[in-house]
Structure formats: C-alpha cells, structure tokens
C-alpha cells in the first residue's frame, strides 16, 4: 500500500488538544516539517509560551523548554547564546508576545539574537477564554470589550512584524496565513527560510502566522477562515516585510 500522508517525524504521537478549526495544528506541522527537512531536528531546542500552545512541548519531538508568560525570547536568548550552532526557536501567541512579552521580543530582535520566532496571531487571548489582545481588531468583540474594541478605550491594534522590522537586528520578518493550500505552502516556505537564515547567522528571524480562533471568535471553522481573510488580512497584510538576505543579493 502506498503511503499518501505521514505525520512529520518532528512531532510526537501525543494527541493535540486544540479546538476544532484552530490553526495551531497546521502551524506545528509546518515548523516540525521544516526542522526535519533541514536536518535540524536532532539538535533543535524549542521554547513554548503560556497560552493555547503552552503544551507545545508535548507535541514537538525536539528538546523543549516551557517559559513563563511572554519570556520565551529571553529564555531562547539564554539557550542560543550558550548553544550558538544549534537551531533554537520560540513559538508564541499574540497575548504572550505582543502584550506581556513585548519587552523581551523587542530586545531579542534589537540584539539580533540568532533564533527564530513563530508568532501565531489570532487577535485574541485563546486559553484564558477570549479576552482582548493588543492585536484584537477595532470593533472585534472579546470578553473584556464586549461591545467591540474601541480606539478610545484600547488604542489601535499593534502590527508586530512591521515594528520589529524597523530594528537592524531583525534579519527577516514575514507575515503569512494558513487558510488554504496555497497559503500553507507559502507559510512553510517562510518558516523554512527563517530557520535557514538563522543557521546562516543572519540575525533575528520572525514569522507571523495569522490564525483562527473559532471558539473565542464564536464562529464555525469555515466562517472563521472567512473572517480572517476579510478582516485580519486587510489590517495585517501578508508578505515579506523584511529580508536581509534579499538585500544582499
């Protein structure tokens, strides 16, 4: 019998706990496949966040550290500086990275820390039950802005990739999504490139993945994908925001 699909060797056999329609499963797979294809799995060290992907240490088959909320970039700095030849990555959500962990991510990028951050932006706090995130869109409802986020109350949502790209230490920043096969392929390419640039010691590498949260958005998985395309992509445009390797060419 021919094998038509096989789980990546970069993932363990643990059953994912994610909600139906959540994109974390796809993004995990892309990170794991990238590490395996680049031959980095046996040496990779990952750092996972606090949030929905807190259990990512159960899913990635490489060595893992579980960080305090928002602190993954500092933890990864400690790992990478002492293991400079090994692939190191953080996997963080938007509450973790763009709110409580903003200082850590900005300074890691400023220092040009040579690790890769996978930033999963679903515009809401998932695990704690749908509270407003710094990335929540204007008008978007959350349990701490039940009539929808307003500029007066919470300001405009933050575009992290664009902000980090202003820092010289940031070598690569790209925003992708995983709403369909074409975009999944683009996301995979971006993640793989980030790891390649990391191993090439180019600097800090960052891939933002727009993601759905059907549970906390109160939508079906299909409607959630539509909402992401119609609302998130216009505010968080897809594409390469910074690529130092292209500038060199």
């Amino acid at each position, binding site marked *: 019998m021919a094998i038509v699909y096989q789980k990546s060797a970069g993932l363990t056999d643990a059953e994912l706990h994610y909600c139906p329609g959540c994109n974390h499963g796809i993004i995990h797979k892309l990170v794991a496949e990238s590490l395996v294809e680049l031959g980095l799995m046996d040496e990779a*060290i990952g750092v996972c966040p606090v949030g929905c992907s807190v259990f990512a240490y159960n899913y990635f088959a*490489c*060595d*893992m550290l579980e960080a*305090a909320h928002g602190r993954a970039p*500092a*933890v990864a700095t400690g790992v990478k*500086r002492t293991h400079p030849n090994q692939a190191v990555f953080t996997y963080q959500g938007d509450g973790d990275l763009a709110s409580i962990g903003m200082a850590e991510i900005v*300074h890691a990028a400023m220092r040009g820390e040579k690790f890769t951050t996978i930033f999963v932006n679903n515009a809401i706090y998932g695990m704690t039950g749908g509270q407003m995130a710094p990335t929540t869109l204007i008008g978007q409802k959350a349990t701490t802005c039940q009539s929808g986020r307003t500029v007066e109350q919470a300001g405009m949502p933050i575009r992290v990739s664009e902000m980090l790209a202003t820092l010289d230490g940031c070598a690569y920043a790209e925003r992708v999504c995983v709403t369909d096969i074409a975009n999944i392929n683009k996301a995979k390419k971006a993640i793989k490139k980030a790891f390649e640039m990391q191993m090439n010691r180019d600097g800090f590498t960052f891939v933002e993945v727009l993601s759905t949260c059907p549970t906390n958005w109160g939508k079906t998985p299909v409607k959630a994908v539509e909402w992401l395309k119609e609302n998130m992509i216009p505010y968080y445009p897809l594409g390469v925001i910074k690529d130092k390797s292209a500038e060199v060419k």
Partner: protein
Amino acid sequence: MAKELWKGNEAIAEAAIRAGCQCFFGYPITPQSEVPEYMSVHLPKAGGVFVQSESEVAAINMVYGAAGAGMRAMTSSSSPGISLKQEGITYLAGAEVPCVIVNCMRGGPGLGTIQPSQGDYYQATRGGGNGDYRTLVLAPSTVQETVDFMQEAFDIADQYRNPVMVVCDGLIGQMMEPIEWREMPKRDLPPKDWAAVGRRGRDHHNVINSLYIEPDDCDEHNVNLEKKYAEMTEKETRWEEVQCEDAEVVITAYGTPARIALTALETLRAEGLKVGLFRPITLWPFPEKALHELAGKSHVKAVLDVEMSSSGQMLDDVRLAVEGQKPISYLGHAGGVMPTVEEMVEAVKKALKEVK
C-alpha cells in the same frame, strides 16, 4: 598563597568564574553593578557568555534558558531587582533548574536606599514567587567567605537541581578586603542528562517545564519537591557558634551584623560578661535544631537577635527555633543604618539585667 585586596562584588564575579560559571545575565543596579561589569570583561575571556539583559525579568529568564540547556548560569542583582526576578525564580524551582542568584541587599521598601540592608530575609527564605518552593540561601559575612562559597553555591544547585541564592548585604559587595584565593573542594555531581541540549540521538526529548496541569500530578510534583527540601535541610544546614559554650546571652545575627557582633563579644567578654554568637550561614534551611538545643541549655539566659531590618525578619525563625525556652529581645536598624558595637553591648546588658 598571598592575600590580595579585592572589592566584594568583583571578588564574587571572579569566584563564580573560578567555580565554573559558564554564563552570566544581569542588569545594572546599585550596589551590585560591579558584578556584571566584571563579568562583561572577564567571563568571555574564560570562554563564557555575558549578556546585559533589558531587565531583571529578562535576566532571570535567560538564566532559565541557559541553565535549562545544561549550563552553569548565574545572575546577580540588588533588592528591587531581586523582586523582579521572583517570577523566574519560582519557575526555576518548579522546573528544577539549577542556578546561582546573588542578592547584594539594599534598603527598602520600594526604591528605599542604596545603602546596605537585610530587609530581604523574608523574600529569600519564604520565596518571593508563587507556590510551595524553597531556594537554598547562603549568607556569608565577609568577602573571603563569599568567595569561598561560590563553588559550593554552584555545586549545591547542581546536586539538588535547585536555585541557590547568595545574600550578602551591600556592605560586603562594596567593601574592599584582603582575601586569599583557595582551591575549594568540588562535589561529585550527577550528569545533566535532563537538560534540553538538543536530542543528539537520544530516543526521547527532554522537556524543562513547571506545568503539571492535572491536580494529582501537581500534588505529586510538590511531594517530590518537599522530599528534596527535607534532604537539603538534613544535609546542607550550616551555622557557626562563637563562644556559646558558657554564654548567658546568645546573639543571633548573620552577614555584616554578625561581624559587628564579634567586636561586641570581645568588649563584653573583657568586662567578664558571658556572651556568644550564633550565626546562621544558611538562612534556608535555617539551623533551627541547633539553635533550639543551644537555647535549651541551662547557661543560656536570654537571646538577642540583631539585624539590619526595622523590626526583625530572621527574628521569626529565631522565635520558632527558641520556642519560648528563653526570652528574646531585638536590636535592628533599616535603611542603611548599621547596628553599632555600643548598641549591641547595651542591648546585651539590658537583656541580662532583665533575666537576673
């Protein structure tokens, strides 16, 4: 070996390098800034890693990363900065990641003052972070003793997979003293086969983690930690007794006040008064049994606790150890004011008068 004149903070950093410290992550704060300054110059020369972090929060998390990946890691700070590190310290304790944290204590609360203090006793011994955990706390009273402790601090941390804190008040950090570089005994330590160093052919992945989401698992985790703390209490408790054999008044003090107490002892003994010093060297585990036994001896009439703290913090542990066997009085100052020999002499005499 000849004695050399060293500033406390620089000696701490040099001693850490000699003890095999492989990486240091720190942030400037008075009165400990000479530690990161020295490390920035000398640790890379010794093949180690120095990073000035963006905050104390980041520094302790860099320690978590490096130590979780198997390295001998250290950070240092002073009181307000140690407050910021508490989040990281409870994660280190929970994930059983060994490291050394130096607190060069200054006066508080809040910004307080940059002068020496011992106001962080509760924070160090009770755990400033959340949850049921302990850090072993070494409290040297001279620059020489601080230097001598660094090897043990790293070794104890590695042996028990637990954070070790070295608390020295700002005076020890800032003072210059003649010291001798001695080869300190090293412990036989287990391999760090638990560390997240990359699988490198291992058949399973290592995970550094303090999350035990199932209540029964978290309960079991705490039971296991408690067993470890009990073992540390049994094997690692340290203290010193000076002229306690016939003492009618026992002074309890650690760090700089213990040193001042030695002069008070001389003065009082010259006057024919029987006074001794009981100096806890580990603040946790506190030498409770030893102090209890000493206080129970018939020649001991009273206990005087002296600290650089307004109303006494170690005093709680002294009371728990003495258990009402003898009266306890307290002498202390906060905010960078040090108890003097004269004050101690007077307080001892007052204590004696009250029991006679």
